[in-house]
C-alpha cells in the first residue's frame, strides 16, 4: 500500500485552478520527484498535503487515513514534514534551537520519551551543521539555511518528508552533497517526495517522477520514461522543438 496518496486533488484560488484533479502515490521508501514549469502547481500541491490549504476537491491519504483539512501541526505530528521553497529558519534562534523546536513539537505525542538534545546532535552531525550550532539562523547562507530546513524535518521523526526545491540556488557541489544526503535519508527509512527544478538532481535520485503543467498531471514514470516523454518536452520547451 502506498504511504502517501492523492485522489483527484483540486485546489482553486478564486477563478484560478492551481491544481486540477491530480492523482499521485508515493510508496514507502521511495524517492519521488515532482517537476513542472513555474506556476505548474507543485508548491500548491505540497501546501495541500501539508495542511496549509484544504483541497477544493479530492482526498489526501496518509497510511490509508484521510488527512485533508487537518491543520499543519497535526499533519506534521502524524509524520509528514516539509521544507519551504524559500528557507524560513526561526531567525533569532540558533541552528541548535531551530532543530530542537522541531524535535520537541513535531513528533507524535504517543511516541516514547525522546532524548531531544541527543537527537539534535545526531541530526547536526549527519548534516555537518555541528560547527554552526550556536549561530543565529539569521547569519546562515543559503546553502546552510536549506540544510537547516532539511534538519528540521528530520527532527520531527517523519515518515515522509516533502522537500520544496532544496537545491535550487545551490552550486553544483552543494547540490551533489545535499542530494547525497537525501539518498541517505531515504536509505534510513524516510520516504522522500520532492519538488525540484534542477533536472540533474531530479533525474539522478528519483525512483519515479510526476510532471505537472498548468495544475494538471501530464506525465509520470521513471526518470528515463519522463526524459523521453513528448508531452513533457513540449511543456518545458514548447511545441515543434522536439521534431528537430
Amino acid at each position: 500500500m502506498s504511504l502517501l496518496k492523492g485522489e483527484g486533488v483540486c485546489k482553486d484560488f478564486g477563478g484560478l485552478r492551481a491544481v486540477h484533479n491530480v492523482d499521485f502515490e508515493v510508496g514507502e521508501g521511495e524517492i519521488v520527484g515532482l517537476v513542472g514549469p513555474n506556476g505548474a502547481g507543485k508548491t500548491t500541491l505540497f501546501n495541500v498535503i501539508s495542511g496549509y490549504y484544504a483541497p477544493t476537491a479530492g482526498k489526501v491519504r496518509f497510511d490509508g487515513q484521510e488527512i485533508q483539512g487537518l491543520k499543519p501541526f497535526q499533519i506534521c505530528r502524524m509524520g509528514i514534514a516539509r521544507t519551504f521553497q524559500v528557507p524560513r529558519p526561526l531567525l533569532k534562534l540558533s541552528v541548535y534551537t531551530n532543530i530542537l523546536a522541531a524535535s520537541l513539537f513535531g513528533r507524535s505525542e504517543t511516541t516514547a520519551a525522546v532524548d531531544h538534545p541527543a537527537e539534535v546532535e545526531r541530526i547536526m552531525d549527519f548534516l555537518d551543521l555541528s560547527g554552526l550550532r550556536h549561530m543565529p539562523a539569521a547569519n546562515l547562507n543559503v546553502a546552510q539555511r536549506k540544510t537547516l530546513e532539511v534538519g528540521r524535518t528530520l527532527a520531527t521523526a517523519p515518515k515522509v518528508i516533502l522537500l520544496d526545491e532544496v537545491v535550487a540556488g545551490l552550486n553544483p557541489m552543494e547540490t551533489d552533497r545535499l542530494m547525497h544526503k537525501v539518498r541517505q535519508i531515504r536509505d534510513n527509512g524516510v520516504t522522500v517526495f520532492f519538488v525540484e527544478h534542477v533536472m540533474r538532481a531530479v533525474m539522478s535520485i528519483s525512483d519515479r517522477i510526476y510532471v505537472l503543467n498548468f495544475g494538471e498531471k501530464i506525465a509520470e514514470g521513471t526518470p528515463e520514461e519522463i526524459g523521453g516523454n513528448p508531452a513533457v518536452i513540449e511543456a518545458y520547451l514548447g511545441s515543434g522543438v522536439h521534431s528537430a
Partner: protein
Amino acid sequence: MLQRAQDLRTWVLQQQKWWILLLLVVLAVLPLFASRFVLHILILFFMYVTLAESWNLIAGYTGKVTFGHATFVGIGAYTSLILLKDYGLSPFYTCVLGGLLSALVAVVVGYPLLRLRGPYFSVAMLSLSFIFTALAFNLSGLTEGGRGISVRPFASKIPFYYFMLVSAIVAVWAIHKISRSKFGLGLISVREDEEVADSLGVNTTLYKILAFAGSAALPGIVGGIYGYYMSYMDPKSAFSFSFTLNSIVMCMLGGSGTVLGPIIGAVILRSMSEFVSYLIPGEFYKLLVGALFIGLILYLPGGIMSLFAGKEGSDVFAER
C-alpha cells in the same frame, strides 16, 4: 565596550542567586523603615514591572503586539471594586477573580482576533480598550458610570506593598520559567514565523491563546490591587492608555523578549518619572519619555538588554 559588557554579564550570572536573595530580603523588610512616599513609589514600580512583564509575554515572546493592555487593568480594577463594595468580598479574592475574568476575556476575544497578523491585532486590541471604556461609562448600574466607583480607603500602604511585590515576583518568576520551557520555545517560534511554527508541530492557536490569557491575568490581578489602593476608579483612569503605553515603553526600553528587560525599563522610566516631575513640574516628563522612545526605536530597537546579548544572540536554549 562589548567585551566589558559580556564580562559583566558572566559575572552577574555567576553571582545572581545571592543578589536575588539579598534583594528579596531587602524588599521584604523595607516597609519597616520606609516612608509612605517611598512605599508609594515602590507600589507603582511593582505594578509596572508586572504590567511590562505581562505585555512581554504576549508581545515580546509571542510577537503579538497589543495596544490594549489597559483593558485588563481596568477589568481587574472594576471587578475588584464592585465585588468589594457591593458584595463585601475580601480584596484577596476580588483580585484573583479580576485576574480570572481578565484571562477569560482574553480567551474569548483572543480566539478570533489572535489570527490577525501584525498591526491588525494591535489595532483590534486598542479598539477593545475603547469598547471597555465605553462599557464602563454606560453600564452605570454596575460601574456607576462616569461618576466612578469609590470604596473606603485602607489606611496602611503596607498590605498593598506586599501584594504588589508578590505580583511582580510572580510575574518575573513566571516569565523566567516560561522563557526557558518548551512552552516558551513554542511562543518564540510563533513570534519568529507563525506558519513555520505550525509546520514544525506547534499548536499555534492554543499557544497564542494561553499566552494571551496569561498576559491578561496579571494586569487583572494588579489592576484589582491598584483599584483598592486608589480606593476610586472611573472609566478614564481604570482603562487609561498610559498603562498600555508604559508597559510597551518599559518593555522595549529594557528589551522585549528578555526576562530582565521589563524590570530595567520599569526602573528607568519610574525613576525618570519621579525625578523629572520633581525637577520640572508639568508635562515635561511625557515629552522626555516620547523623545526617549523614538530615539530607542531608531538606535537601539532591541532595548538595553541587546547590548548584553553577545554575538550568539539571546537564544537561551542553546546555552545549556
